Structure formats: C-alpha cells, structure tokens
C-alpha cells in the first residue's frame, strides 16, 4: 500500500448546455479530502464561463442521481445534468 492520499481525483461529465458553458464535455478534477458533490460543483463554477452553472444542478454519481452531500471517492464519475428535455 502507498501512503494515504490527501486528494481525490474524479471524472466530471458535462452535457448539453453545461458542456457548452464550460467548453468541454469531460474533465478531471482533483479535490482535497473529504470531498462531496457540492465541492466538485463549486470547483466547476470557478472555471471560466461557468458562472451560469447553477449552485445545485441535478447530479448523477456513477449513473445514479445524488444529493450535494454525497461523498466522492477516487475514480468516481460525476455527471452534471442540465434540466432534462427528452420525449
């Protein structure tokens, strides 16, 4: 075993209007431990162009909808979902 990590690296997926706001549909972010969904969103909102990202967007962690309190683990896939408009 290596030394205990003090950060967590996750993959963030962006869709539709949010991908356009950030100019990317996928990016990796590194957060200090302990990290929750809200911390990842806060980090994203600090990026250029992302000021119009909502503070509490709909989020899915590893394909399941989650709340902002949900903890993040290494390798997690966090999807930030704009208002749905299927159908």
């Amino acid at each position, binding site marked *: 075993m290596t030394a205990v990590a003090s950060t967590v690296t996750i993959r963030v*997926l962006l*869709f*539709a*209007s949010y991908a*356009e*706001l950030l100019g990317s549909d996928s990016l990796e972010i590194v957060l200090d431990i302990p990290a929750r969904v809200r911390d990842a969103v806060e980090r994203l909102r600090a990026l250029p162009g992302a000021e*119009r990202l*909502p*503070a*509490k*967007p*709909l989020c*899915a962690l590893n*394909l399941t909808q989650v709340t902002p309190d949900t903890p993040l683990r290494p390798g997690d896939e966090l*999807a930030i*979902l*704009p*208002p*749905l*408009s*299927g*159908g």
Partner: protein
Amino acid sequence: MYLTADPIDLGSLLAQVQSPRHGGIASFLGAVRDHQAGRSVIRLEYSAYQPMAEAECARIVREAEAQWDCAVALKHRIGTLHIGDVAVAIVAASAHRDEAFAACRYVIEEVKRRVPIWKREVFADGKVEWVGSGEGRKRGSGELGSSEDGVEVAGSSPEKSVK
C-alpha cells in the same frame, strides 16, 4: 437498447409486446412539431447521457410492467431529427385497455421526467436554444420542444440561450 440513432420502427415495437393474451394495445409517438410558442422550428438535436439513460429507461419499463401486468416497448431516438420524425415511441400491451393506457401514459411521463436526454431547437430564424434552460421554461406547455415535464434544477438557471 432503448436509445437509437436510427428511425424508430413502430411495427417492431408492436411485435415486441403483442401476444395472444393481450387484447388492448396503447401506444404513443412523440414527433417533432413545426412550431413552438408561435416560432417556426426547423429541426431538433437530441443528446443523452447514454448509460444512465439506458438504465433509467429500463427501470421505468420494469415499473410499468409490474404495476399494470402488461408488456412495454420503448425507444427514444437521439441525434438530429426533422419535422415529423418520431423522437419517442411507447407501446403497452395488456389483457385490457385500462391497463394498457395507464402504462403507456406512465412511461411517457416518466421518460420526460427522469431520463437524461436533452434537445435543442433550431429555429427558422437561425437561433438555437437548449430546451429547458431559460427561454424554454417560459414557453408554457408543449409536447416536444418544451420543458414543462423536465427535472428542474434546484437553483438558478442560465438566463440566456446557449448558442
């Protein structure tokens, strides 16, 4: 696979659910309409978070089949769709029509509410707008091309259209 980039074939969905036990078959097609709140629409562009959309569609179908003793077929198209193209098709077959109608209605409502799919409208005046962000929300009810059934973000939302 519930999502497809190809045109949806209603006949094959019907074949999926027809059975000698089934006397009532209700279906719904959502097609691309040429207007949205008085503005002329040219085409729609659908995208999805595909693995989650597949999982959510499967859950919705299972819920309907369990609740109404029926068989349900569902397809949602993604990519570029033109006026009249079918974006979503649902067929629900049951012994009786009450169950078939109820299941069909449930599936379309839940698909619109829960499945991570997005569309943007391309208007005749050249504007392109994501449905459900800003403008979309103000447009009032509509079939395709509206957000009234979409999950709303619990915070602010973009105030301008995203071009």
